[in-house]
């Protein structure tokens, strides 16, 4: 029996890679294959669904295919380099170190290591799966001979959870009818939240003096987060920029439901799941065209080729006060979302890995 076993540095709940890995495991098992998840570490909630990667050799079977969920540095990469089984990379992108230089040197070193691991693994992989053409191109540049673009799978039903109504009421009570700009993503230099603060400052001067910016995501780069919020305070936006962290899925859904426009000025995105979450929340999107954002967004949002605060503020206002445009973007978002449907993605994963197991190669 074919075995497609996944390796992932950390299996975490409420995490895109974690959800993707679990959903794939279930998909492979539904296809009649053996499928286990091997990890370097796992959260308490998921520890019974994972096995430490060092134990794989004693369980290895002829015909196994090893699928590595690659998005960070890990000793798992070195382990896989030593394995004889066919290796498939599922690449979720690693942020270039240059974004962290000067902000957080240890993170810069870690992503440098991660990118060196991608470079070592890519030429050895029989197949590189990427969740965007942007990521696939990066794999090919690093020597991966065959690549396929397959979207990331989300384990939950739909892209966003049921809305936490209490959270929604609490948010609304805080800002009333003021315009709310939302961005979801870790607070990190490559996400460029400081440019959103600049856009908000200008938006309040020009269009709505009560407008708010809601930033949802962990402050993983502490020095950058401090700079962003210090900068906002300096501009007199202390109460206007709100940070949401450690939200439950239902609370996150409430933040989406509460917002008027989803704004992304990130400088490096390998896929950008929040764009899909915004589409699923019927939230119009304004985004800077960087990395994989254009291909994920398609024509379901206003795509800016520049992220000057004046341009971002004007685009937000246009979306906010042009109902025809907003409706069109929301409708296009729903259509776009259909292209990332879970069923089609699961089928494509089975098709691609099945072909590999049968020795037919990948179409």
């Amino acid at each position, binding site marked *: 029996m074919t075995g497609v076993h996944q390796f992932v540095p950390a299996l975490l709940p409420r995490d895109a890679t974690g959800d993707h890995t679990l959903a794939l495991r279930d998909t492979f098992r539904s296809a*009649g294959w053996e499928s286990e998840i091997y990890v370097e570490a796992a959260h308490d909630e998921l520890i019974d669904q994972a096995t430490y990667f060092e134990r794989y050799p004693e369980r290895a079977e002829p015909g196994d295919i090893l699928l590595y969920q690659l998005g960070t540095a890990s000793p798992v990469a070195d382990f896989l380099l030593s394995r004889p089984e066919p290796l498939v990379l599922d690449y979720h992108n690693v942020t270039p170190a240059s974004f962290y230089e000067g*902000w957080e040197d240890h993170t810069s070193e870690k992503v440098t290591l991660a990118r060196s691991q991608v470079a070592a693994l890519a030429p050895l992989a029989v197949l590189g799966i990427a969740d965007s053409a942007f990521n696939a191109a990066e794999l090919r540049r690093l020597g991966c001979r065959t690549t396929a673009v397959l979207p990331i799978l989300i384990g939950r039903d739909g892209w966003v959870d049921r809305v936490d109504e209490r959270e929604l009421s609490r948010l609304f009570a805080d800002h009333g009818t003021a315009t709310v700009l939302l961005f979801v993503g870790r607070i990190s230099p490559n996400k460029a939240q400081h440019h959103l603060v600049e856009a908000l400052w200008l938006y309040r001067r020009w269009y709505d003096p009560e407008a708010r910016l809601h930033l949802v995501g962990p402050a993983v780069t502490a020095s950058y987060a401090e700079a962003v919020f210090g*900068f906002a305070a300096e501009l007199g936006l202390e109460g206007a920029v709100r940070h949401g962290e450690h939200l439950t899925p239902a609370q996150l859904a409430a933040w989406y439901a509460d917002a008027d426009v989803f704004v992304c000025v990130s400088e490096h995105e390998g896929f950008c799941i929040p764009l899909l979450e915004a589409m699923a929340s019927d939230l119009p999107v304004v985004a800077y065209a960087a990395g994989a954002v254009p291909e994920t967004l398609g024509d379901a949002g206003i795509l800016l080729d520049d992220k000057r605060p004046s341009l971002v503020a004007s685009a937000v206002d246009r979306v906010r006060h042009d109902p025809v445009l907003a*409706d069109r973007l929301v*409708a*296009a978002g729903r259509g776009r979302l259909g292209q990332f449907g879970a069923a089609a993605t699961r089928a494509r994963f089975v*098709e691609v890995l099945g072909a590999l197991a049968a020795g037919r190669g990948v179409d």
Partner: protein
Amino acid sequence: MPSVAPIEPDPPVDPVGPVDTGPAARARYLDEVMAEIDAEVRRRRASGDLPAGLERELDELFLEFSPVGLHGRARLRETLALVDGSAYVDTAVPVASQKAVGSYVKRLIRKAIGWYVGFIVHQIVRFAWSVSRMFHVVVDHVEDLEAAVESQRTPELPASAVPVAGPGWSWWSGAAVDALAGVGGRVLHAECGDGTLLDALIAGGADAYGVDPTESVIEPAIDRGLDVRAESVLGHLEVVADEALSGIVLSGSIQWLHPNERDRLETLVTSRLAIDGVLVLHSATPESWTAGSSHLISDLAPGRPLHAGTWSHLLAQRGFRPTALLYGGEDRRLDQVAPSNADADAINAAIDVVNTLLLGPGEYLLVAVRER
């Protein structure tokens, strides 16, 4: 290979809003919207709502909050604050857990090994604070040094004000060739310009080469096959071996070096010149400095020419024996009036005073031999 289990199809997409007119029409529509957004920004700019440079100023303001944007002293202090912040080790390990019993167990473990952890942490913190204190002392010293250096910093002389070494034969060239005739070893001409003096030195039998910081000036010398390098005299002498030169000619901008650099030049010349080596120094006179040269140079140059006597004194202190002093160049002294003039004596006495104090020959050539 097992057969693939059937997978339920995705639910159909239910678009809302205006009728979908196809991807091309949607793209055109979005292009039109973008053009209108661009126009709105231009309108804001034209109306004065978006002053020029405002967005750049916002970026610069953000950099003030960022370690990336900090430079020099601010960055040093920022880094020091990080060291201070990291020097504290918290022994209160978090005990939160997803499971109720987990929290209890963690609390129990923390209590049980608290004495052990505390002992270790105490030593780690003491070490960390010692390191941090050392950094504070170093930073204080660095800041004192920076302040001292900054207070003595001389503004750069505008490049456009610096004259390139004048080509051609000067009044002092023949004397320099004579002074260096028969020295035997390598002779360096600093700020050699187009190499005219080098030609004469070589013709006189010297093994001469030159340096000049202005690349364009030395091109004719290079074209003639002379050994000429585009370097400053200080930079060149730094890499020359001790006592490797038998003769040195100093001319050009060395006469207005900053006092610290002039002192360094004296040291280098002394060490690089062999015993019995000959130093030839050409300079403007202080009297001609303000009157005869560009005001930009005389006002902004980091140093000023010395009197010949002062050079003689400085060189003597370093073991040189002055052997010749020649004055030349433009002589701006006033002529005395004829004795037939009724007030000739008084006028000529006044002219003597003016000539002595304010005027006199424009340049001099000092020759000295290194004796020790």
